[in-house]
């Protein structure tokens, strides 16, 4: 596609529920990143894939967070047993030329845990 597509755009989850957030990167983009953005803050790094390999997951807040990209294209961020502090916008970005050329971001998924 022309841009990075994320779904759903909005998700309301009850505390304790599991959620799955999807990212469709730009076709052919090797690098894929997940970021978490709290209200009024800049995005915070969660994890990075190069093709299907997860090269850095140091930003994942807890073992309740899990990300995968099994075929090197679509990625899913899964959050188990959601907590209120997980409420945020989750942004996906992709790049084909390295970070120095910038990322293309999706519009994000706004997760609200009630």
């Amino acid at each position: 596609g022309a841009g990075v597509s994320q779904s759903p755009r909005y998700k309301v989850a009850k505390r304790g529920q599991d959620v799955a957030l999807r990212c469709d990167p730009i076709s052919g983009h090797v690098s894929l990143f997940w970021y978490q953005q709290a209200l009024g803050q800049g995005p915070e790094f969660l994890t990075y894939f190069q093709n299907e390999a997860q090269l850095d997951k140091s930003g994942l807040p807890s073992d309740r967070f899990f990300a995968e990209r099994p075929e090197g294209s679509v990625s899913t961020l899964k959050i188990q047993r959601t907590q209120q502090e997980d409420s945020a916008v989750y942004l996906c970005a992709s790049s084909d030329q390295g970070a120095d050329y910038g990322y293309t971001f999706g519009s994000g998924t706004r997760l609200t845990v009630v």
Partner: protein
Amino acid sequence: TQLLEQSPQFLSIQEGENLTVYCNSSSVFSSLQWYRQEPGEGPVLLVTVVTGGEVKKLKRLTFQFGDARKDSSLHITAAQPGDTGLYLCAGAMSWGKLQFGAGTQVVVTP
């Protein structure tokens, strides 16, 4: 944790005025990037600066990268209401991770 400090946090100006946003860090980055984010959307890349001392101009926007590649500024001349948004600076780490600042919210009123 934001390693990049942006200032000011909030800026409200009248149409036609000039503004400058600053981004400072104690770390050296391979490049520094500026993004603008509007409500409900992801950040959109404005510019990447790579060389220390580099100055880039995009219409009414001027971007500078400090000589030591630790700081940057964004200057907007004759601001317009369409310039309203959250301006984010981001430093690129060696392998591709971007470290973002907390952002500067700019509001330009007619």
